[in-house]
């Protein structure tokens, strides 16, 4: 940027400004059109939309050889805006009569050298009146519809026109200078464009010996309170000048202090090129200020700390929830503890071979006869809402059935309550609720039953595996016992047979042969059986397999898994949202930086131009 040639005149500055404004406008529009997570206020959006329009308009105007200054007359119905314009024009170009509202169509008063195509589109549809007065060559004067009549469309039209204005001349009369509607619009617009003031019907303001303030003093006081300490203020009797132009002089003399000529002088000479440029630059500066303010307003907050806090407090809640849910799920398993024990036992005993295996299968069958019998006996009382278990073990089906019972009973309600609890907690931490509401509710609506079923199934399988294929020292104990149990019973059997046979053959005839035949057959079997029972006891003592022991394992694992599932779904939400907002915040900051950059550039050039003025150019 420093490579730009310094110019002594303001005009090139303004013209090089145009592309910058266009670029800025595009950025703002791009930002407006983009999707945003952070809710933006409609009012702010409308403001930004308007400011983008302003930028575009300003850029368009600056492209011209010399920018046109748009002066608008604003005021209540009947204050004499049209008369004022007629007086300025020296003839009836705007309709003025008591039969108002007369200015439905705004009148644009412009120099004949200016092509109407160059006007802002809003102005092109107005009533156009051209003139050939050179001092007003680069100024257009617009007579606008009233602000306060029963024709509300007029007010809308005015509000449409106002953004085009560089200078607004607020016209008041003795009656209306204080009216609320005009005052409101003035207050809204004063931060955006230049204002001049005309107190028309000055002749009616001069009462003798009255108590109150004179209207001009009163109004100047008001303006002072609004920050206009030395406003451009003119007292006029427009009708007098219209009559004079028409060759009628009905009202005779002008009251003292009438300033119509000064107004004309200001419009023609006072607003010279330098001032026009300054006003344009000021207008652009004001747009920048507004833009920056609006952007600041809409910038999302930085929620990094808050999201971290929220996460911490959520994790605690999720822990509790996982614990409680594990309880509930396990509770639904409770009625099936014998089935589970049975299943585990079968799985555990699968590693035994031969005699031991046969023995254990038989014992297990007897011990858990109930679990396989139950479902074949239709007349047995069953708990209501019982899970249909098949005699063949199907973990998948079993867990799904369990979780659906648990879900219907408690978990669905719990999950709903959880999302509410989380939101309330987030609010306590200062997290804006509207940002969390949707993702949290969505997270609570996903198929939690399926997740619970999955978790339960995984846990069942995992625990089962742990029991049937243990690790660590238990693995060694297990291995030793397995080898013992697989190898020793047949050995014992053969050994005892051998021993018995040995005894029989060693001592022939010493005993009863018939008796010893029975002994030969039964004693080894009995010994083996006793051995098997002892082994079984050993297994039961060393590797106990009771529901109570499995249950603890289940609970621990289930809680862990549920906690995991809940955490991955919920706990990351605040952080994700905060990150997304931070991203959006950066976008806004980038935009603000861009505005500042152009503003800084403008200020630099402006100073250069002013210095040029100082040096007599």
């Amino acid at each position: 940027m420093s490579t730009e040639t310094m110019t002594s005149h303001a005009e090139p500055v303004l013209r090089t400004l145009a592309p910058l404004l266009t670029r800025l406008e595009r950025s703002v529009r791009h930002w407006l059109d983009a999707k945003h997570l952070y809710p933006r206020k409609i009012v702010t959006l409308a403001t930004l939309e308007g400011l983008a329009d302003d930028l575009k308009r300003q850029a368009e105007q600056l492209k011209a050889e010399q920018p046109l200054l748009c002066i608008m007359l604003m005021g209540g119905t009947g204050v004499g805006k049209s008369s004022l314009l007629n007086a300025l024009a020296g003839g009836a170009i705007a309709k003025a009569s008591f039969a108002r509202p007369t200015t439905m169509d705004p009148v644009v008063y412009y120099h004949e050298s200016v092509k109407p195509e160059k006007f802002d589109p809003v102005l092109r549809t107005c009533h156009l009146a051209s003139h050939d007065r050179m001092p007003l060559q680069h100024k257009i004067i617009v007579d606008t519809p009233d602000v306060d009549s029963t024709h509300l469309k007029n007010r809308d039209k005015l509000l449409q026109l106002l953004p085009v204005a560089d200078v607004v001349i607020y016209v008041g009369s003795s009656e209306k200078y204080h009216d609320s509607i005009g005052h409101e619009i003035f207050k809204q617009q004063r931060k955006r464009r230049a204002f001049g003031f005309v107190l028309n019907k000055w002749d009616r303001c001069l009462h003798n010996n009255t108590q109150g303030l004179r209207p001009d003093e009163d109004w100047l006081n008001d303006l002072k309170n609004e920050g206009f300490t030395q406003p451009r203020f003119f007292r006029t009797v427009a009708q007098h000048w219209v009559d004079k132009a028409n060759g009628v002089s009905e009202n005779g003399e002008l009251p003292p202090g009438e300033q119509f000529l000064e107004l004309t002088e200001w419009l023609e000479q006072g607003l010279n090129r330098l001032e026009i440029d300054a006003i344009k630059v000021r207008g652009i500066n004001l747009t920048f200020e507004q833009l920056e303010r609006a952007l600041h307003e809409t910038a999302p907050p930085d929620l990094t700390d808050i999201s971290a806090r929220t996460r911490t407090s959520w994790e605690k809640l999720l822990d509790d929830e996982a614990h409680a849910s594990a309880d509930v799920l396990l509770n639904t398993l409770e009625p099936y503890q014998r089935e589970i024990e049975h299943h585990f036992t079968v799985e555990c005993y699968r590693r035994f071979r031969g005699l031991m295996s046969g023995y254990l299968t038989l014992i297990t069958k007897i011990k858990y006869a109930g679990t396989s019998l139950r479902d074949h006996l239709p007349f047995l009382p069953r708990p209501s809402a019982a899970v249909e278990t098949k005699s063949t073990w199907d973990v998948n089906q079993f867990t799904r059935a369990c979780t659906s019972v648990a879900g219907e009973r408690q978990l669905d309600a719990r999950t709903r309550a959880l999302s509410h609890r989380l939101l309330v907690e987030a609010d306590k931490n200062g997290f804006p609720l509207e940002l969390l509401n949707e993702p949290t509710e969505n997270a609570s609506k996903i198929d939690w039953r399926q997740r619970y079923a999955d978790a339960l199934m995984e846990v069942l399988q995992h625990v089962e595996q742990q029991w049937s294929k243990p690790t660590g020292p238990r693995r060694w104990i297990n291995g030793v016992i397995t080898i013992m149990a697989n190898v020793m019973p047949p050995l014992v059997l053969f050994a005892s047979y051998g021993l018995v046979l040995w005894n029989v053959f060693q001592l022939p005839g010493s005993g009863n042969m018939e008796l010893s035949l029975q002994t030969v057959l039964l004693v080894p079997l009995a010994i083996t059986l006793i051995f098997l029972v002892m082994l079984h006891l050993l297994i039961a003592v060393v590797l106990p397999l009771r529901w109570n022991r499995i249950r603890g394992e289940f609970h621990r694992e289930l809680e862990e898994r549920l906690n995991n599932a809940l955490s991955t779904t919920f706990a990351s939400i605040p952080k994700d949202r905060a990150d997304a907002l931070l991203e959006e915040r950066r976008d806004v900051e980038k935009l603000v930086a861009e505005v500042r950059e152009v503003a800084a550039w403008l200020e630099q050039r402006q100073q250069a131009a002013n210095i040029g003025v100082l040096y007599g150019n």
Partner: protein
Amino acid sequence: MNETTSRALVGQLSEDISWLEQHCRQQKETALQAGQLRLAAALVRNAIGPYLDGQAPIPLHVTVVGGASSGKSTVVNLLAGAVAAEANAQAGFTRHPVCYTNANGAISWPAHLGFLGPLIRLNEPAPSSLDQDVYQVRRVTSDTASASLLENFVIWDCPDMTTWAAAGYIPRLLEICGLTDVLVYVASDERYNDAIPTQFLQMLLEAGKPVICTLTKMRAADAEAFLEHFRAEVLSKMPGSALNCMAIPFFTAQELANPTTGRVAEFRIKLLNQVSVLGYPPPVARARTVRLAANYLVLHSEQLLSVARDDLNALESWNAAVEAGRSEFEARYRQEYLATEKFRRFDEALIRLIELLELPGVGKVVSNTLWVVRTPFRLVKGWVQQNLQRQESVNQPELPVLETGLKGWLDFLRKEALQRSDSHAVWAHIEKGFDNNQLPNQAKEKFQLGYRAFQLGLANEVERTARSIYEELEKNPVLLNTLRGSKLALDAASIGGVVLAGGLNIWDVVLIPLAASVSQYLVEYLGAQYVEQQREETRNRQEALMKEHLAQPLGEWLTSWPSTGGSTYERLHQALKRIPGNLQELNEMVTGALARSGVAN
């Protein structure tokens, strides 16, 4: 009907409507409705109230209203026949109503409590720019023409309604408009189609005030055309019609300095005539004022109350949220506690019931014999039960289930309140209640109370039902003996049947115990069914009991929470409940009073 009741009624109505107006002013975009409410309150306390109180019709009130600097003081001076009101160039100089009356005319102000609402009469003369809720009375010396008017009338000069400061004093203006019998609306050539004064005119016409429109400041030559234009442009769009329109063209300050002479006098007499006609005879004029005011109030009562529609909708949405929370609370109690609760007491009852069916006295021998015979059955049954009975899941205790449910309910409501706190003040109020823990703490207290009552009811309920299973039987020997007899007969029949069918042989050793067991099983099964049914009923009754003692009172308490504790919504509820009925009653009183006075309507 007497004065006391009418005074109380008027007092309450005007207070309620004024409260609604204040409530309305606190909200955005309801300035117009606030104005209507103020006018309604003023009509009640300033026009109808004094009439029901039996106040004399004189003085009648003529009120001059209009936009800033539109020429109100000029019109007042014309009516008073003297330069009574100072003409001010400063727009919006007058800030409180000023009443003008005859120099020696004693005016008896209605000594009615609440007359002119908050406006206080100034005893010392003060400039009319005093911006306070006051009014003042000034005496004027007038000529004969005005003197005859001032015999019956007082003239009110009012502040404007157009300047940006007017928002603060429009209520004073409306207060006087409620009082007025004849209204003079002033519009200058500049103001005649201004939005705000026109809106004002429309409201007063709706309220049934007789209006004279005076158009001012036009050139004398334009007067006729201007009147025509005003009628077409403004009046034609009004609901009622102004009684009269007249033009008062532009006069110089010198001309206005003496309103009884010169060009001015001609317009003045015209105006005086129009006002006098409307006020003659005074009792009729006053009766008309009162009649029209009452009509307006009754016809527009719904519209007047419509400002509270948003509040009611918000309260409605709160009710819906509370209801949703309540059904969830009930469902959770049912699912998490009741569905799995076993009511152990009933198992005991079953045992007692079966024992009761055994024979007493001599029959004991038979019973014992059969008991011995059934030994194998008992053993098998014991084994089967031990092996086949499923373990029952551990039920959660009741209190934690209820407490969790309550917590969920409150969380849900709090979440809703947080989400909607921007939508309406009711929700913001509720959110605040949650924020300072007032609402949840009170809810928990309420819950504790309800829970205690529930427990008391419950202890009786379960115990009574369970005990009644066997006590009923004990108290009814006929039934008991019949049942015992039937059981004995069943046993005898089954054993006898076996013996008869197969004769006495070795198989009887197996068959007789079997037959005795089968009959016993049948009896036990029937008993269990009966107890089960009782258990189910108890479950239902317990649910009903919980609803009665906990869910319903809590729900009702929560529903009414925003409108209790001296909150705005309590007052709103009261006002909305009372106003329509009171308006009707007031209307009837007016009708009665008018009929009694014999003035034709």
